[in-house]
């Protein structure tokens, strides 16, 4: 809720997607590594692409031997040797993308200075290769990726290098740098760098800005985030948009600070934004976390007044909140309401409702709901089964629990830690130790839990059972 889908961002920048799985790159076979640019630069002209591919085909077999360990060692001289051998064996001219992907895969395992030397070496050996902004962005990302770098010295060096070579960083560079810094937990440095870059070169775009805000909300106190917003507003007139406000409200709701959320809602209205469905869902979630069902319904009514069309998430949140607050009857009514409005309840809806019923002790009703759900063509997921298992155990319906467990087993569903523990405990109390061992085996085999946690639950349950027996009050 209120989150920007990752696809939003990566689609726009070829380079970010190139960096998406940095770990997997060096391990790939050379053929695949060289193929990378095709996938990530879909806009490149076709003739070049064909030429490039054909060059690869002839290239790979001849240089197979040195290539099969492509950039396995962070050693600079090895990399240079490898590059020389590729250059000397390739009958076709190699283009920029090839060099970039080589540099990228080397930079992922080497140090910053080594990558720079490697780039210089490539320029020296192969003069027709002229690095562009994307090449320097690779170096910039690498310098941001190192976990410790006091005063941003390595980053500044790279930035200076970019400027002297005629490629001042743009908003793409800013984005890459911010993401790299945040991924290694250097948020303060990221703030520093964004401020510096906005003043000297180019301000971040809204995606970078919102990404950073969201990351700060997760890792820093709220005042830091507000300071950053104020500073950006005074520095480059970058104002928070509706997405930013949604992120902020989500953050304060998660920390149960609803007063602040209400204040933000006022600020947002003053700034001329109209809350959308996303935002209402976020606020509703905030109330649901606090078990305030009436307010959640209030939000729903407000949406109707404002003419905002509720979506599936709205109903799921509402049903979840009401079930959690123990108002299952009302939650069930909304199941009908949402069907009327053309939204089909999904596994999440039903599972929330079952959870509410189980909390009330109506596990059998929840099982009946499972049948109803399957009749309507909605297939339950492992969370549904775990909820039911938990509920059945709590209501001491062990046989039904075992039956359900059989279903889970045949569906190869994973057990969750809490339902596993409850199930084991009820089995042990019911004197069905052998069954408990079977459940333990399944948990280990299906990799639902680690061996250690699965065993320690079993052991502690048996231990407490023994204690209870000694005290003469075993159930």
């Amino acid at each position, binding site marked *: 809720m209120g989150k920007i889908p990752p696809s939003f961002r990566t689609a726009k920048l070829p380079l970010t997607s190139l960096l998406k799985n940095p770990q997997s790159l060096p391990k790939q076979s050379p053929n695949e590594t060289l193929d990378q640019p095709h996938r990530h630069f879909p806009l490149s002209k076709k003739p070049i692409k064909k030429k490039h591919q054909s060059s690869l085909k002839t290239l790979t077999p001849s240089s197979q031997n040195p290539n099969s360990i492509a950039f396995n060692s962070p050693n600079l001289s090895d990399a240079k040797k490898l590059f020389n051998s590729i250059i000397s064996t390739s009958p076709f001219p190699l283009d920029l993308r090839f060099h970039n992907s080589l540099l990228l895969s080397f930079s992922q395992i080497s140090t910053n200075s080594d990558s720079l030397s490697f780039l210089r070496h490539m320029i020296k050996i192969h003069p027709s290769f002229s690095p562009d902004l994307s090449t320097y962005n690779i170096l910039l990302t690498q310098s941001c990726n190192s976990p410790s770098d006091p005063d941003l010295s390595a980053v500044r060096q790279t930035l200076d290098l970019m400027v002297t070579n005629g490629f001042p960083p743009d908003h793409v560079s800013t984005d890459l740098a911010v993401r790299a810094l945040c991924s290694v937990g250097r948020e303060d440095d990221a703030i520093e760098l964004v401020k510096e870059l906005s003043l000297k070169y180019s301000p971040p775009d809204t995606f970078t800005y919102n990404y950073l805000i969201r990351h700060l909300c997760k890792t820093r106190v709220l005042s830091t985030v507000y300071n950053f917003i104020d500073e950006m507003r005074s520095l480059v007139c970058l104002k928070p948009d509706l997405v930013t406000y949604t992120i902020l409200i989500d953050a304060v709701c998660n920390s149960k600070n609803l007063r602040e959320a209400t204040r933000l809602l006022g600020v947002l209205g003053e700034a001329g934004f109209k809350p959308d469905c996303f935002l209402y869902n976020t606020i509703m979630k905030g109330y649901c976390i606090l078990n305030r069902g009436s307010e959640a319904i209030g939000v729903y009514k407000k949406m109707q007044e404002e003419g905002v069309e509720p979506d599936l998430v709205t109903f799921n949140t509402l049903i979840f909140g009401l079930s959690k607050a123990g108002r299952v009857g009302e939650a069930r009514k909304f199941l009908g309401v949402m069907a009327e409005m053309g939204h089909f309840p999904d596994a999440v809806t039903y599972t929330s409702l079952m959870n509410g019923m189980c909390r009330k002790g109506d596990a059998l009703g929840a099982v009946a709901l499972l049948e109803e759900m399957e009749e309507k063509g909605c297939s339950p997921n492992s969370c549904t089964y775990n909820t039911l298992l938990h509920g059945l155990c709590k209501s001491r319906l062990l046989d039904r629990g075992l039956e359900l467990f059989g279903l889970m087993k045949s569906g190869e569903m994973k057990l969750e830690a809490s339902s596993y523990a*409850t199930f084991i405990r009820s089995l*042990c109390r019911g004197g069905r130790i*052998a069954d408990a061992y079977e459940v333990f085996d399944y948990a280990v085999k299906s990799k639902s839990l680690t061996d*250690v946690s699965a*065993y320690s*639950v079993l*052991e502690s349950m048996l*231990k407490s059972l023994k204690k209870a027996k000694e005290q003469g009050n075993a159930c």
Partner: protein
Amino acid sequence: MLPQQAKKAIAGSPKKLANLIDLVNLPSTLREFVGQSQISRLGCFMHVWSYIKTNNLQDPNNRNVVNCDEELRSILLGKPQVELSELPMLIKLHFPKEPK
């Protein structure tokens, strides 16, 4: 005991975890049974339990009870019959607390 508490107890105490997964030099009786000179308490439990399963040693009438064969008897205090619920405790006996 609540499951959350049990979980916390494990997560919160590295000593208990170490006690479960650290490799220990085995006494000779156990060494013969396991076929290794070192094993963790968890590994030993898994080994014994899978031994029981593969040899069908659970009593057919009451599956909570294990009828020990010769080898199993040698490591489980010589008992002819062992309850499954006792198994972790019996295995723990082979892994005494290390003196500080």
